C-alpha cells in the first residue's frame, strides 16, 4: 500500500468520534415541508386575507382543484429529491424525472389556462406586493432546507440547491392560488416567476457551500 495512504488512514481512524447519524431523509424532509407550509400560511394570513370564494373553488371546481393538487405534489416531490441529495447513492433517476414531469404539468395547467382558465380571471383578492411576498415566503424555508441537506453529505451541492429552490419557490406560488387574484398570466409572471429567482439563489447557495466541503478535523 502507498505510504501516504497508510498515514492518511492512520490519521483518519485515530481518535475516531462516534458519528451523529444523518442517514434518514424522510422525517427531516417531511418536517421541513410541513413547517414551511405552516410558515407560509401563517405569514400569508397575517399579511392579508384569502381571496373570497377561493377555498370553495377547491371543492367545486375540478380544474382549479387539479391545478392546486398538481402544485402540491410537485412541491413535495422536489422536496423529496432535494433531501435525497443529502445521502450519497440514494438518488433515484425515475423520481427526478417524475418531479420534473409533474412540475411541467403544473406550468402547462396555467399555460392552458391562458385560453381555458379554471376560474374567470379577475383582480378580486389581488395582493399589492405578491411578488415580494413570494420571496418572503420562500427564501427563509429554502435556506433552512439547504442547511438541513448540507448537514448530510450532498455530493452535488448545486443540484441540491436547485431542487430545494424549486420546492421552496413552489410553496408561495401554490398558496397564492387561494390568497391572491386568479389569472393564469398573473400566476405565471407574479407567482411562478419569483420561483426562478429562488432557484437561482439556491444555485448560489450550492456554489458557496461547495467550496466549504468539510475537511476532517484529524487532517488539520
Amino acid at each position, binding site marked *: 500500500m502507498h505510504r*501516504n495512504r497508510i498515514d492518511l488512514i492512520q490519521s483518519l481512524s485515530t481518535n*475516531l468520534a462516534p458519528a451523529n*447519524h444523518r442517514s434518514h431523509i424522510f422525517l427531516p424532509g417531511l418536517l421541513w415541508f410541513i413547517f414551511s407550509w405552516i410558515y407560509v400560511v401563517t405569514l400569508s394570513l397575517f399579511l392579508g386575507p384569502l381571496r373570497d370564494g377561493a377555498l370553495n373553488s377547491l371543492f367545486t371546481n375540478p380544474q382549479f382543484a387539479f391545478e392546486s393538487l398538481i402544485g402540491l405534489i410537485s412541491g413535495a416531490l422536489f422536496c423529496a429529491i432535494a433531501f435525497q441529495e443529502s445521502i450519497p447513492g440514494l438518488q433515484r433517476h425515475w423520481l427526478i424525472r417524475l418531479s420534473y414531469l409533474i412540475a411541467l404539468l403544473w406550468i402547462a395547467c396555467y399555460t392552458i389556462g391562458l385560453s381555458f382558465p379554471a376560474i374567470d380571471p379577475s383582480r378580486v383578492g389581488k395582493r399589492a406586493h405578491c411578488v415580494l411576498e413570494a420571496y418572503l415566503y420562500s427564501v427563509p424555508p429554502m435556506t433552512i432546507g439547504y442547511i438541513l441537506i448540507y448537514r448530510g453529505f450532498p455530493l452535488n451541492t448545486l443540484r441540491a440547491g436547485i431542487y430545494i429552490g424549486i420546492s421552496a419557490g413552489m410553496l408561495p406560488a401554490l398558496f397564492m392560488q387561494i390568497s391572491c387574484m386568479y389569472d393564469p398570466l398573473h400566476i405565471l409572471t407574479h407567482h411562478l416567476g419569483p420561483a426562478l429567482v429562488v432557484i437561482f439563489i439556491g444555485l448560489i447557495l450550492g456554489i458557496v457551500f461547495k467550496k466549504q466541503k468539510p475537511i476532517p478535523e484529524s487532517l488539520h
Partner: protein
Amino acid sequence: MTRLENDELRWSQWMTQAQQGDEQCYAKLLEELGDVIAAFLNTRFGPIYLIEDCVQECLIAIHSARHTYDPKRLFRPWFFAIVRNRTIDLLRSQRSYKSVLEQHTLKQIAGTVTPIEDEINKSMVFSMLAPAYRDVLLLTKVVGLSTSEAAKKLGISESSVRVRIHRGIKETRKILKIEQVER
C-alpha cells in the same frame, strides 16, 4: 454467499462499528476500501498516477460522509456514489494531474514502466470513449497540456477542446456507473 455479498456484509458491519467509534474496524475498512478504489480505478483508467490521489480523496470523502451511511441500506451504492463523484471532481481539476507526467517520466527513465500511452489506451474508460473525447482528455488531463496547447496539437479551436472535455467527462461519469469491482 458470494464474494460480493460477503464484502457487502463485512463493510457494512465495519462501518456500523466505525460509526460507534471503533478505530480498529474503521482502519481495516479504509484499508480494504482503499484497495477496492484503486482496483476500480485501475481497471477504468489504467495505471496512471492520479489513482493514488483519487483513492486518498475518496477515503477523505468517505470519512466526511460516514455519518450518512445507514446500516439498513446497502453499502456499495453509497460507497460507489462517493467514489464516482470524487473521481469526476478530480478529473475536472487539471491541477491534480500536473505531477502525473513528471512522476511517470522519472519512472520511465528508471525503466520500470511501459509507455504510459499504451497502458492508458487499453484502460476501460479511455477505450470506451470516442476518439475525439479520448484525445482531448489524455492531452489535458493526463499529459497536463493547457487548453490552448491541446487545441494547437489537435488542430481545433480552444472552445472545441473545452466542449470535448466537458462531454468527455460526462461520458466518463456514465462509464464509471458500472460498479463491477475487480480486486
